[in-house]
């Protein structure tokens, strides 16, 4: 069965790229959001298995959104996909509850490999 994916990013182009890439790898996009606030609202209704999360977004940033989502579902898998390339930010995202960090710009292969690493080979089919 396809894993349910929610994509959170303020760029339509990035949301499209993630959708194109991961729907070829047995994932189904159940929701997209352009900011953290909308992501929190959509999360409960769609119950995704995995979330890709931008960090720099309007209204609610990615770190705050990760905290909010982890409160709703502590077992959610979150891959941060961000341009913020410093180590401190990656470490902070992992401390907040993300399990993986992919730096922009990324290729389709980078994204697929990061997702496989996040989910483990068994979960990804």
């Amino acid at each position: 069965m396809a894993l349910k994916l929610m994509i959170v990013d303020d760029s339509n182009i990035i949301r499209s790229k993630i959708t194109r890439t991961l729907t070829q790898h047995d994932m189904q996009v159940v929701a997209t959001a352009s900011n953290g606030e909308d992501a929190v609202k959509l999360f409960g209704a769609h119950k995704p298995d995995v979330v890709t999360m931008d960090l720099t977004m309007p209204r609610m940033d990615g770190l705050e959104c990760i905290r909010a989502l982890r409160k709703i579902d502590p077992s959610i898998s979150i891959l941060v996909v961000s341009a913020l390339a410093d180590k401190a930010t990656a470490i902070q995202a992992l401390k907040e509850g993300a399990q993986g960090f992919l730096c922009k710009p990324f290729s389709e292969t980078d994204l697929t490999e990061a997702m496989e690493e996040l989910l483990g080979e068994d979960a990804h089919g």
Partner: protein
Amino acid sequence: MDEQQLRVFIDIVSQYFERQTGKAPEVGSPYLGDASALPIYDFTGVIGISGERQGCVYVTAHRDLLRQLLLHVGEADVSDTNLCDLVGEVANTISGNARRYFGPDFMISVPVVVSGNARAIQVPRSVKAYILPLRWHKFEAALVVSLQ
């Protein structure tokens, strides 16, 4: 800004195009520009910088460059909406990647995208801006870094 910091931005913008399209841009000789005479092409993505450094980083590009870049990244919709989105995302990525060098106190805003209107772009008037002219395929763009 010193030469080494300028080199950081040259490397990042080159790597961005190379990774996304397989072809790095030609980077012209950087020069210092006055706030009243900065390059502006069809679409501009502006990132405000705060924290230890203050100012802005912006990417401004010709429409045709952005259309080609969109097609290279697999996006068939080359509407103005997506051109705006792309120039904002390029500016965001370059500024965000710069934190690898400047650290987490190099705080970046969400992108503000301006279509054509140079007067809407605010850069610090007290500092000169570094302008990096870019040419990718035959299309022109510029990266402008204005930091106190």
